[in-house]
């Protein structure tokens, strides 16, 4: 599974994307956030509890209770500021 980071989260994590293989008990986006925090200090900071960020599974915005089973790509990003 590919994880992608955008805007300041990308700078904080230190990579734009990475291939990961989380264990089977990482079922939802929220589970994945918790699991990713242990990968590095940058991950822990970018994905900190209380930080305002959103997620997409296979390029559709989702809430954190959505399962990631079978997903090819999960993305994390700060609130959108386009337009």
């Amino acid at each position: 599974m590919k994880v992608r980071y955008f805007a300041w989260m990308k700078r904080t994590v230190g990579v734009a994307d990475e291939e990961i293989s989380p264990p089977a008990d990482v079922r939802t986006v929220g589970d994945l956030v918790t699991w990713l925090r242990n990968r590095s200090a940058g991950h822990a900071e970018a994905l900190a509890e209380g930080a305002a960020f959103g997620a997409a599974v296979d390029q559709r915005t989702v809430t954190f209770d959505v399962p990631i089973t079978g997903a090819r790509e999960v993305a994390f990003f700060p609130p959108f500021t386009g337009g």
Partner: protein
Amino acid sequence: MAVRVQEGDFDVGAELDRLTKGNRRIGGLAVFVGLVREMHVREGLHRDRIDALTLEHYPGMTEKALEDIEAEANRRWPLEATLIVHRYGRMEAGDRIVLVAVGSPHREAAFEACEFLVDWLKTKAPFWKLEETPAGEKWVGAHEGDDAAAARWEKKAQ
């Protein structure tokens, strides 16, 4: 219906001509052009002028998000033509960022749908603005007003 995400500038006149050409049922065409605005921000003791920004986006998801928004507008209003062109990359003050155009038999529907598209794309399309200030780069925080503007349309959906 058309959505485009591109790095280069767009030609407003040519885009609108192409959008309405041959369609004799359009009575009103409502258009929005978003431009990079020169801004002054106070950061501690400094007063910085922002002259340029870089728009990062999420290739693939951006197009999907804009198509979803466009489809929603077409569900809500009787529209004859819709177009969203959004740029990414580096832009300077005065440059065009986004074009939204809506053609409808009636002007009220065109105006409403155009405003809806602009409000929604600001909060639902994966773009992030990085401003260049003399003191360095700075990510733009989400604007509360944009959430409020987008929320108007959530209520109407019920």
